């Protein structure tokens, strides 16, 4: 067809005119608008349902801190956790983990029904079973072991020793006939031994941080999660307002060190030596409270030991801190009206060496601030659990008289109540049959949190019957034969004693269910009572309660009503604590490994953004982890640029490198940081999970895989704080 000029123009103007007309009409805009409205109504974008708003007060039990929480609900859904105003511990404040607790409650790591293992141990393959089947199976196994006279081979690991549920577990073991109740040790246990040795009392330390006017912290992560987190944060802010000086002694600049008035980087592991060096100055210059100390038992011996061994020249060499700095530190500490020295590294989740704890406590003793405002209080166990002594049958008596597997309370370790760190070696070194035939685990994840996790897992694989009460599919639950899942923390009624959190006035909290149980779970308290009843006879007789709730109500007695209303009760109990100085028998704990072969010291560090205990990190927490700590699945270790150049490594920011310790090696990336002492490598604690969900598993490495336990000569606790390490090149 021939297109004439006329046709071309008329077609052209039709197109142009049509386009212009359409553009001027509302059509394209209407279409764009419709398109965007359509995309906004995609059915997979959730529309949260509206409803009646209510608040439920409770106590957070994600850590022993004992904070009051107020949970906002819309109909039956919990939508937000907030701090409870007016609560004596946290007064409205809340920590990052507590805020994200709903991700645990509604998260994909919850165990939804009782499970029975079908795959290999540790493989994490389970099948669903009913509660009747599960409880029957556990009771039968325990019954068989008991009838074979092996009741003492049953052990229990509990996250804590305080509270009714741990005490019910302990009671079950006692009447069943096993002395092997263990709890996960923390710095509180090291402090408890210190108070026992230096005051002869059974007590927890209470730190009166609100009234102290000079804080000397030997590596304690005051704003990293040490003690009761929110309370310490508030104290730290109050110190800022009142211009109270905090001195932080630590080889890496933690958040606490950055906020402190003074940061003194001491050689890692030399904290105890430094404390005694300060004690030397106080004794030499007469800067101690003579009226308190001179009459104390063992003081002259203590003075002699310190004067002979801790002269400033030696201390300067051992700690890497100048003599003058130590001197002025001693003067400042002794010169303050209410100085307070604290220890327990980072969050205090590991006990630490008795040497260090006693040295630091000696400073408080010298300053005369024991049981004084602004000092350290000896806080007794509030003893609200007063059940009738159970009657033991012959089997139980026989079982209870056999020695503990972990050696706690024996002649070698007279002071420790439990030594979980000694359990794996005891299992692995035993000849013949495994000394632990059955293990019950509640609120603990030793396959992740104990040093040298490889060995721990090997030991767990040898235990013939493992029962986990975990609400979440953690590393230890994966080693279980039967899982009896507990309600999650916001679904259950339970007492939450916070007397082991360094509070000067201990608080008993009542954790109340915020929502009804989401899955087919059972309160561990009820599971324990059911097991006892199934075992029958005297075991059953020791558990006369109909249910855990009945037990709790009876236990709390006259406190029950007010606890139900307020969720907390402050306990005002004190205990006489005469001072006695210890004989210097304890030794510092050194980092394992040969210095020549391993030129660096590897130290784990705690971050408030990484939960590293029984509770795994929530997706929100992991989201806040900086990209200098984790990038994709690669973990970053911190190292001073001065240390990064040697050994033909010439590391740059982000370089991949092989980190090797006497316990193992792992590929890591380096983050060059001026905030760490040369020669030290810092690795974050809380990563490297193999269990849980895709939001946590496989990210980074678990520092406990590279670090071995270091048994403290005084207490028997694992006092490891680091290990020697080397870096070698690695191909990417």
């Amino acid at each position: 067809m021939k297109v004439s000029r006329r046709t071309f123009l008329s077609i052209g103007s039709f197109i142009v005119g049509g386009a212009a007309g359409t553009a001027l009409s509302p059509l394209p805009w209407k279409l764009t608008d419709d398109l965007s409205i359509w995309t906004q109504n995609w059915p997979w974008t959730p529309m949260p349902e509206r409803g009646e708003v209510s608040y439920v007060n409770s106590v957070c039990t994600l850590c022993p801190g004992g904070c009051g929480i107020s949970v906002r609900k819309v109909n039956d859904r919990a939508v937000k956790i907030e701090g409870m105003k007016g609560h004596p511990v946290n007064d409205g404040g809340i920590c990052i983990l507590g805020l994200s607790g709903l991700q645990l409650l509604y998260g994909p790591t919850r165990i939804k029904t009782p499970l029975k293992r079908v795959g290999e141990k540790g493989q994490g393959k389970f099948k669903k079973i009913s509660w009747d089947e599960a409880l029957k199976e556990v009771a039968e196994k325990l019954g068989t072991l008991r009838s074979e006279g092996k009741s003492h081979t049953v052990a229990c690991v509990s996250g804590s020793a305080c509270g009714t549920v741990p005490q019910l577990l302990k009671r079950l073991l006692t009447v069943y006939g096993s002395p092997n109740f263990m709890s996960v040790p923390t710095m509180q246990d090291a402090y408890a031994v210190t108070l026992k040795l230096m005051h002869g009392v059974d007590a927890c330390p209470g730190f009166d941080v609100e009234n102290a006017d000079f804080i000397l912290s030997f590596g304690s992560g005051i704003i990293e999660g040490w003690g009761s987190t929110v309370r310490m944060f508030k104290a730290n802010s109050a110190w800022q307002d009142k211009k109270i000086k905090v001195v932080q002694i630590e080889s890496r600049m933690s958040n606490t060190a950055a906020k402190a008035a003074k940061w003194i980087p001491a050689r890692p592991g030399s904290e105890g030596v430094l404390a005694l060096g300060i004690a030397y100055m106080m004794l030499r210059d007469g800067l101690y409270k003579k009226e308190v100390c001179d009459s104390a038992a063992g003081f002259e011996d203590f003075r002699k030991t310190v004067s002979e061994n801790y002269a400033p020249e030696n201390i300067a060499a051992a700690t890497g801190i100048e003599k003058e700095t130590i001197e002025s530190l001693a003067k400042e500490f002794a010169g303050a009206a209410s100085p307070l020295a604290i220890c327990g590294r980072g969050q205090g989740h590991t006990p630490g060496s008795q040497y260090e704890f006693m040295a630091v406590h000696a400073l408080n003793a010298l300053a005369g601030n024991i049981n004084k405002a602004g000092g350290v209080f000896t806080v007794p166990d509030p003893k609200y659990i007063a059940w009738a002594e159970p009657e033991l049958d012959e089997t139980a008596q026989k079982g209870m008289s056999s020695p503990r597997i972990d050696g706690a309370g024996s002649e070698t370790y007279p002071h420790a109540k439990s030594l979980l760190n000694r359990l794996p070696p005891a299992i692995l070194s035993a000849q013949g049959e495994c000394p632990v035939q059955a293990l019950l685990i509640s609120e603990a994840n030793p396959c992740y949190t104990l040093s040298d996790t490889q060995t721990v897992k090997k030991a767990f694989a040898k235990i013939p019957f493992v029962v986990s009460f975990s609400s979440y599919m953690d590393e230890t639950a994966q080693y279980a034969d039967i899982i009896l899942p507990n309600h999650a923390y916001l679904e259950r009624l339970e007492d939450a004693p916070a007397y082991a959190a360094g509070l000067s006035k201990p608080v008993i909290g009542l954790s109340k269910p915020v929502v009804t149980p989401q899955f087919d779970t059972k309160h561990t308290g009820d599971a324990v009572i059911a097991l006892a009843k199934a075992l029958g006879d005297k075991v059953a007789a020791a558990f006369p309660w109909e249910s855990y709730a009945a037990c709790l109500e009876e236990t709390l007695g006259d406190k029950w009503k007010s606890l139900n209303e307020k969720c907390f009760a402050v306990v005002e109990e004190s205990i006489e604590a005469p001072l006695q100085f210890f004989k210097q028998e304890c030794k510092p704990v050194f980092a394992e490994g040969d210095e020549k072969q391993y030129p660096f010291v590897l130290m784990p560090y705690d971050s408030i953004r990484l939960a590293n205990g029984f509770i795994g990190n929530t997706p929100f927490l992991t989201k806040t982890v900086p990209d200098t700590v984790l990038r994709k699945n690669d973990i970053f270790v911190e190292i001073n640029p001065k240390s990064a150049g040697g050994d033909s490594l010439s590391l740059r920011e982000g370089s991949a490198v092989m980190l090797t310790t006497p316990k193992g090696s792992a590929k890591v990336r380096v983050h060059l940081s001026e905030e760490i002492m040369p020669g030290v490598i810092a690795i974050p604690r809380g990563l490297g999970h193999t269990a849980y969900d895709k939001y946590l598993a496989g990210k980074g490495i678990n520092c406990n895989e590279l670090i071995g336990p270091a048994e403290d000569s005084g207490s028997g606790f694992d006092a490891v704080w680091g290990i020697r390490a080397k870096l070698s090149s690695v191909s990417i």
Partner: protein
Amino acid sequence: MNKQHNKAKKFGMVIDLDKCTGCGACMVACMAENNVPFKADETNKLDSITWLRVYKLTNGKSFPNADFCYLPRPCMHCEGSHGHSPCVSVCPATATDYSHETGIVSQIYTRCFGCRYCMAACPYHARYFNWWDPVWPEGMEKYLNPNVSVRMRGIVEKCSFCYHRYQLAMEKAYYEGRREIEEQEYQTACTQACPAGAIVFGDLDNPEHAVHELKKNPNAFRLLERLGTNPKVYYISSREWVRQAGDNYLRQEGKSEKN
């Protein structure tokens, strides 16, 4: 007209960096309150949605003189001059607007079509784009807050100073026959959560509100003040290097002589 009509407010924040511990509770409080989604991998911070982000500033000195400080960064709710904040000026969809009633820069998700001009215009990186559909693991939708709509793929979102809390507080006040709200009736989720008490929120123009005095602190400063964005978030730091880091100063400019 009606004399009782609401007095214009200028909501803002004063964040004490001496108290801020960098714990990140504000970030999580914000994410929990505002239904912010998360992915399996959030380590690429360029696409990780955090309305409020805590930055770490370092003084650049070497060991042992190194020092660092955390700086929480919500949306600055810039007033610019007469409400011409950088993002509002460039939005072709009128999806973001400056409210002269509250001083809050809004983000209207249903209007936004994802051109991201505002992200380019914002000098504080306070705006985030939804590159993916928000997906919660099965069952976790249960905790979503009905007061804040969930954003879909393809749009921009940012800190709203928890505007829904303002609306709820105002509704309550109106219901009770009041025209004004008390300082404590409207607080953002981050302010409420901060365990260190480092964040203070209120009406910058109201002498009865704490922020009114706090912003006059001689150590108070704002971020990139010289750009003329006129932000409503103030910071306080006793450390000079931190205050210096708040703007793009030349090496020796503005430093006191003793340094």
